[in-house]
């Protein structure tokens, strides 16, 4: 007797909807087992992780603040992954966006400036991220260099660049030698939505991006091209689509969105540059993209869920003295379960006797 995979004749819509939910349920279950193994009360730990973040207004605001960059980045990554372009350097593109946008804020610090400043910063951030994403795209299309490795290597480069800037040339002279830039001026910060909390205009921007992307993917030729190149590259070539140009396009778009997320985080949430402005948004967004089935609206829902795990992890660090890495374990498990469940949507596992196989 052995297990074999068998392709399902048709993929049922019910399974498609169910699969991410099952993945989340399995992750929560495994999380409970892990907490129990660490000597904690699993119910209490699960409560801290998944319920506390959404049980008061402040927590909900924080979830939205954390979900914003995740959603923005994931929408871009979904376009890449759909067309078989493996951009895994969104973390670096996020940092480049923060650097480029932050540079405008720092350069105009203390000089009179007008309402053009904030749009310029957002544009600068998007351009910064797009620039860093362009490098692996060009290296892939021109030289055939593996984009997975090149885009990832650039994450380290961007991290060191930011580190150098905030410790060196951009360090706040009045900051007691702390590795951080000046606090951005009010004109250079993204307005808050409510008086208290940190929720800012970045979140509505992310929602608009989701809507625009959803329409583009579902209703335009470009969206069709992206899906076709990923699913049937030969057919796409016969149809006259240029896959090199498409690679450049999706990398530029996903880099720009990651960069936009970076400048929103810097100018909206943190309001200055520091060495650690990201708790790994660029990598977590990969999980968001897959949990959201590479669909913009799906990314929105998935982004909120993964934002909860970030806040839950911070809560658990304070109340349960758990290391922050537990969050990463949960996120990694989630990606495993999402992928496994998606595979079981396409395939059926069947037990067959050895004779039947041979």
């Amino acid at each position, binding site marked *: 007797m052995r297990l*074999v995979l068998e392709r399902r004749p048709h993929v049922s819509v019910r399974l498609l909807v169910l699969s991410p939910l099952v993945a989340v349920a399995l992750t929560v279950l495994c999380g409970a087992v892990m907490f129990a193994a660490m000597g904690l009360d699993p119910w209490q730990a699960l409560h801290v992780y998944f319920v506390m973040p959404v049980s008061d207004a402040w927590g909900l605001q924080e979830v939205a603040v954390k979900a914003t960059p995740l959603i923005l980045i994931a929408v871009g990554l979904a376009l890449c992954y759909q067309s078989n372009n493996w951009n895994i350097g969104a973390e670096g593109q996020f940092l480049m966006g923060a650097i480029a946008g932050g540079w405008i804020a720092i350069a105009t610090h203390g000089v009179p400036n007008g309402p053009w400043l904030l749009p310029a910063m957002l544009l600068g951030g998007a351009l910064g991220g797009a620039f860093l994403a362009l490098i692996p795209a060009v290296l892939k299309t021109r*030289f055939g260099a593996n984009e997975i*490795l090149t885009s990832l*290597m*650039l994450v*380290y480069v961007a991290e*060191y660049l930011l580190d*150098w800037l905030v410790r060196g040339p951009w360090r706040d002279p009045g900051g007691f030698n702390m590795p951080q830039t000046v606090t951005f001026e009010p004109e250079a910060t993204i307005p808050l939505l409510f008086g208290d909390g940190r929720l800012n205009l970045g979140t509505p921007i992310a929602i608009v991006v989701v809507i625009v992307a959803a329409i583009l993917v579902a209703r335009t030729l470009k969206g069709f091209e992206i899906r076709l190149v990923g699913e049937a590259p030969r057919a796409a070539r016969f149809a006259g689509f240029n896959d090199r140009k498409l690679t450049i396009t999706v990398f530029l778009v996903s880099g720009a969105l990651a960069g936009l997320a970076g400048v929103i985080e810097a100018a909206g949430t943190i309001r200055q540059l520091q060495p650690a402005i990201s708790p790994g948004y660029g990598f977590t967004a990969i999980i968001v993209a*897959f949990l959201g089935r590479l669909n913009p609206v799906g990314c929105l829902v998935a982004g909120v869920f993964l934002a909860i795990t970030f806040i839950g992890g911070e809560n658990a660090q304070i109340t349960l003295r758990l290391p922050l890495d537990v969050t990463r*374990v949960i996120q990694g498990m989630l990606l495993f379960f999402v992928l496994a469940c998606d595979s079981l949507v396409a395939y059926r596992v069947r037990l067959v006797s050895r004779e039947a196989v041979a």
Partner: protein
Amino acid sequence: MTIAEAILLTVITAATPLLLAAIGELVVERSGVLNLGVEGMMIMGAATGIAVAILTGSSALGVLGAIAAGMALAALFAVMTLGLAVNQVASGLALTIFGLGLSGVVGARFVGVQREGIGKIDIPVLSDIPFLGRVLFEQDPFVYLSVLLVGGVWWFLNRTKAGLVLRACGENHTSAHALGYPVLRIRLVAILFGGACAGLAGAYLSLVYTPFWTSGMTAGRGWIALAIVVFASWLPWRAALGAYLFGGLTILQLHAQGFGVPVPSQLLAALPYLLTIVVLVLIMRVRQGSTAGPASLGVPFVPDR
């Protein structure tokens, strides 16, 4: 010890973990599987290695623990990619994220615990050869093992039938299956071997290179090992060459600072990553854009009965 000797020694110690991880991944990729989770398996090896070594007081058990941890993560990857035919790129990324997190949880109790690193083995007579003797024949066991592994893998791939079958699986899994070879079982063994090598590389980091645990201590070495496999065109001896080249680049940073070169330390730290990109581009130019990689690399295989 002369400066040249010291530099050579540090190059060898920096290159060894890269070589161990790369030679394992090379076998995996030759069998047609792309496991991007090297970084995750490596850091789990590092964390488990030092945890076991501290708890039991035995470095040997620590090394075995590291190998077991690497293989356990590799087995998880195998279940996903072979058992469920999941996209290998995405599974590898999941493995890396998961491994980085889990290593932090495992290692949390051991942060800052110092222990004595694994010592060097002095090969008599040979180590008395002037200059090269001390550099080449007075090394820790991992260095010897890495060279043996390269030779062993070369011999296996090119001189044995099993190696030929493994390569056949990587070049065309449908044909290999049609000839009656158990493609998935062969790939499983290759993936486990890759995991063991990555775990070993991790053990080298936490038990020899810097004999204590810090979170994220692999610092992208798993990814550089993947780049080395591409650089090496999937050939074992070239992987060794690549590892020593990259090892040299990594330690450039230490020595440049030692000589007082007026360059920001961050630029030097970023150099290995930048040079990895340059090397990847150059090697593709040399090959005129044609990939010499195994033809079935990264393509999931579901045997139809």
